[in-house]
């Protein structure tokens, strides 16, 4: 369970990222956060694993407190929380397998890492993660040779290799074309259902949010302005979140609207 209690994030230059957030996310939920750029959705997601420090308030992931956590505690927390990024953040010069093994670093002795050696058990976990996202045949391919969608799936495999309790996704599909974006969202949804891992995704494409989210959180100006199931999030609600009426930029180009939680 992830619990925010009056969390405020103020950046060094003065801007307020989060302005008093109270939020509880239960285990196994699939949450989608939407809002304008700068509304705080990226900040919200990044405070959960401590990439953005909390200025005041309490933030707890399970039993561990994230606010004010020391370096050791943060590393332990991040071992249990996986994250995928908009730009995939793979090491392009190395193989897919080595990238996935990054997810096992938290339990690998530093000496083995320095020597570039991976334990058999870790390699097995990595392979299983690759199989789960359906890309195992590329295990020894250089990451730079993969397409965007494939790279993101490798990133998902990297997160799965951590065997995390929570998966965070910061704009995971913003760099992908519409069909691939749907595939990736479907993968995330499937993993959430099959493995029961709490998943929090940060999106700005509204149709994807409605199609895949189990719970939608709308943010504006660092505050939560909407929190409910996708059925309640109609266009009027979105207009309220975005402070303007919707434009074509807010939905994926030529998306079939029939796509919904029932499609697999």
């Amino acid at each position, binding site marked *: 369970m992830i619990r925010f209690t009056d969390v405020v994030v103020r950046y060094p230059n003065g801007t307020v990222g989060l302005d008093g957030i109270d939020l509880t996310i239960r285990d196994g939920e699939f949450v989608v956060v939407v809002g304008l750029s700068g509304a705080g959705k990226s900040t919200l997601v990044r405070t959960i694993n401590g990439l953005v420090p909390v200025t005041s308030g309490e933030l707890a992931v399970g039993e561990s407190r994230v606010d004010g956590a020391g370096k050791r505690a943060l590393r332990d927390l991040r071992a249990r929380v996986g994250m995928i990024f908009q730009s995939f953040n793979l090491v392009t*010069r190395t193989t897919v397998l080595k990238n996935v093994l*990054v997810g096992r670093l938290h339990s690998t002795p530093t000496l083995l890492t320095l020597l570039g050696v991976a334990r058999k058990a870790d390699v097995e976990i990595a392979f299983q993660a690759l199989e789960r996202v359906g890309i195992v045949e590329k295990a020894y391919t250089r990451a730079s040779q993969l397409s965007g969608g494939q790279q993101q799936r490798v990133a998902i495999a990297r997160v799965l290799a951590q065997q995390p309790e929570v998966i965070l996704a910061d704009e995971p599909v913003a760099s992908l074309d519409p069909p691939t974006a749907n595939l990736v969202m479907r993968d995330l949804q499937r993993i959430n259902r099959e493995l029961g891992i709490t998943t929090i995704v940060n999106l700005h494409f509204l149709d994807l949010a409605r199609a895949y989210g189990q719970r939608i959180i709308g943010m504006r100006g660092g505050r939560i302005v909407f929190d409910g199931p996708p059925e309640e999030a109609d266009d009027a609600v979105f207009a309220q979140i975005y402070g303007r009426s919707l434009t074509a930029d807010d939905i994926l180009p030529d998306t079939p609207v029939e796509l919904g939680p029932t499609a697999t």
Partner: protein
Amino acid sequence: MTAPVAVRPPKPRPALGMWSLLAASVVITIVAGSAIDFDLLPLFSDTTRGWFIVSQFFAPDWSYLGRTVAPLLDTLAIAVVATAFGCVLALGAAMLASRITTRNGAIYRTSKAVLSVLRSLPDVVWGMLFVAFVGVGALAGMLALVAFNVGIIAKLTAETIDAVDPGPLEAADAAGANSVQRARVAVVPQILPNFASYSLYVFELNVRASVVLGFVGAGGIGTQIAVELARFNYDNLSAIIVVLFVVVFAIDQISGVLRRRLAS
């Protein structure tokens, strides 16, 4: 109403920077020229004696070539070992001297300062120092070159580290890796081609440096050159020079090819 007449902007003052630089350069050149008693006259007058000596250098004693092999191999061996050890030390030093891999401000600044000092001493001065510490011979040459190399490689590598893509580092952090693991997994693969290129560059420098190091007693072909020069054996000397030239030229070409391959 007639269209308003456009006012021509006043001609901007000429870029001060460029011309003042040029003026400063000319002044410095004049000052420097007089400081060294710049005088091209000897080139045209009283050339007989000078050119006589020069011509003696162009009559190599080819039978001497056999005796250059051993010292030349020594020089190459010293260069190889010094480059190897220099690289290993420099990699660690570079990590300390880059903000990306060292978060502790004090360590970072101290490392940069130490490396700056290391780089300010010419290789021959290092040679003299180590001859004083460990006596004449190849050991002094090796240690001197290692000290000389670390400064150069570490600075170049630190600059490369500063320019890496921060994405994979963020991913490693988010997966719970510690600083060392992060450097090994996300930084090293990105800097490896450049690092190899710097190593080759420094190897070339080492071979050239051996000539002067020999003069201060630090072994290699330089010692032989110093000896033959002192004995005025210009024919032997020119044989050595020819061989040295061929070797350095060959290394230049090979290294150029290798570095182009690395860049791809």
